[in-house]
C-alpha cells in the first residue's frame, strides 16, 4: 500500500488515544471505588 | 438572634475548617472568639460574612439563611480580615470615600469616620503605602464605619496597633455597639479583648464552645 505509514499511523493514533483514555478512566475508578459503598453507586 | 449557627461544617480545599460549629449571637453583643491558630476563627468569620458555602448544618445571619441566600447577607455585614482591603496607591481619604461612593454615603460620613478613627488631616492625605500597620488598620476600620455595617466581623483587629490605637479601637467598637451594631471579633490578646467583650467563645478544632 502506498503511504502505509501515514495511514496505519492515523489508525494507531486514534485507537491508541481511545485505549489510553479508557484505561486511565477505569484505573482511577478502581482507585476511588474501594471506599465507596454500593448504595452510592447509583448506576448499579 | 443576629447570628445562629447549628452544626455548621465549612470545607475548604477538602479540609473541614469548621467541623460542626454551633453558637448564637444576640443583637448588641460584642463577642470574642478565642482559640489557637488554625482553630477555625477566620473561617468562622468568613462564613458569617457569606463568603464561604456551608457544606452541612444550618446558619442564619441577620435573618438570611446562608445555605440559600448567602449573597443577600453581604451588604449588611462588614468583614475585616488579615488583609485591610485598601488600595496602596490611594490616600486614606480617597480609600474611604471610594467606599462611601459605592454605598452612597455622604462626605460628612467620611469626615466623621476619619475623626472617629483619629485619622487627622495630615494622615488623610497620606498614601496608604506610606502608613504604619496600625494606621492602615484604622483606615480599614473607618471604611467599615462608612459602610454602616450591622454586624462587624473583625479578625485580629488589635494586631499591629499601638496602645493608644487599641484604646481608640475599643472605644470605637463600644460606640458602634451603642449605635446598634453587633461585633464578633477574634483576638489573641485575651486580657484586653475580654475587657471589651460582653461574652467570649472558645473555638478549637473547628468547634465552638462557651467559656
Amino acid at each position: 500500500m502506498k503511504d502505509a505509514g501515514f495511514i496505519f499511523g492515523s489508525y494507531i493514533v486514534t485507537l491508541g488515544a481511545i485505549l489510553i483514555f479508557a484505561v486511565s478512566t477505569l484505573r482511577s475508578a478502581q482507585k476511588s471505588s474501594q471506599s465507596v459503598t454500593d448504595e452510592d453507586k447509583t448506576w448499579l | 438572634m443576629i447570628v445562629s449557627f447549628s452544626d455548621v461544617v465549612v470545607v475548604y480545599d477538602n479540609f473541614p475548617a469548621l467541623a460542626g460549629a454551633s453558637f448564637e449571637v444576640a443583637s448588641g453583643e460584642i463577642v470574642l472568639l478565642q482559640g489557637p491558630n488554625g482553630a477555625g476563627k477566620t473561617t468562622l468569620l468568613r462564613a458569617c460574612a457569606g463568603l464561604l458555602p456551608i457544606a452541612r448544618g444550618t446558619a442564619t445571619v441577620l435573618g438570611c439563611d446562608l445555605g440559600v441566600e448567602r449573597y443577600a447577607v453581604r451588604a449588611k455585614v462588614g468583614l475585616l480580615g488579615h488583609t485591610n482591603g485598601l488600595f496602596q496607591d490611594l490616600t486614606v481619604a480617597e480609600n474611604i470615600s471610594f467606599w462611601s461612593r459605592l454605598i452612597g454615603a455622604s462626605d460628612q460620613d467620611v469626615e466623621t469616620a476619619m475623626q472617629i478613627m483619629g485619622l487627622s488631616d495630615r494622615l488623610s492625605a497620606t498614601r496608604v503605602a506610606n502608613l504604619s500597620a496600625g494606621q492602615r488598620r484604622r483606615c480599614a476600620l473607618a471604611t467599615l464605619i462608612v459602610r454602616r455595617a450591622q454586624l462587624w466581623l473583625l479578625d485580629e483587629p488589635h494586631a499591629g496597633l499601638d496602645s493608644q490605637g487599641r484604646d481608640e479601637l475599643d472605644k470605637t467598637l463600644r460606640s458602634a455597639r451603642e449605635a446598634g451594631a453587633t461585633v464578633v471579633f477574634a483576638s489573641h490578646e485575651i486580657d484586653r479583648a475580654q475587657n471589651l467583650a460582653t461574652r467570649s467563645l472558645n473555638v478549637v478544632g473547628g468547634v465552638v464552645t462557651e467559656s
Partner: protein
Amino acid sequence: MKNKSGTRVTKGKVVTAVLLKDLRIEMRSRVVTNQVLPFAGLVMVMFAFALDNDDVLQRVAGGLVWLATLFSLFIIVQRSFAIDTADGALDSLRVAGIDLSAVFFGKAIALALKLVALEIVLICGAVLLYRVDLSASGLVLLVTCVLCATSGLAFVGTLYGGLTAGAKGRETLLPLLLLPVVAPVLIAATRATEAAFGSGGAQTSEGWAWIGLLTVFAAVFGVGGSLAFGSLIDE
C-alpha cells in the same frame, strides 16, 4: 441597592467610582506609562529587526500594532486585578454586596482607556518606524476600528482577568483563555487597520466590513461579561 439612610446608589455611580479609582491608581503608580508602553514600543522595534525589510514592514504594520497590543493586554489585565487582590480589596467588594456587573463595567472602561492610550502610541510608532501613509478617510476608519476593537478587548480582558484573579498559575491560564477568544479581534482589527494604512493596495472601503464584526464582538462580550462576571469572581 438601598443603604440605611435611604439614598439610592445607582449603577452609574458604582461604575464611576471603580473607574476613577483604577485611573487614579494608574496616574500614581504609572505602571502602564512607565513599563507597558516601553515594552510595547520595544516589541515594535524588535519586529523591525526581525523582519528587516521596509516593504514587508509596511505590508504587515497593521498586524504588528495589534499583536503588540495583545501582548500588552495580558500585562495590563493582570496589573488591573493585582491592585484589587494585593490587599484583599476584591474580597471586600464581594463582602460589601456591591453590584458586580457595575464593577465589571468600571474596570472595563478603565482598561479600555489605558489600551487606547497604548494603541495611539503604537500607531504613531508604526507611522514613523514602518513609514506607513495615512489618508484622511483612513484616519476615520482607524479611529472607529480602535474604538470598537478596544472595547471588545477590554470586556473579555476584564472578564477572564476576574476569573483568574488570585488563582494559582494565573500568569499562564490568562493567555490560554484569552488568546482563542480575542482571535476575531486580532483578525478584524488587523484587516481594518491595513485598509486604513492602504497596505498592499487595500482600499479604505474594504476595512469597514470588519468594523461590523468588531462591534458585534464588543456587544456580545459586553452583555455576556456583565452577566457572567459576578459568578466568575465569586467564591
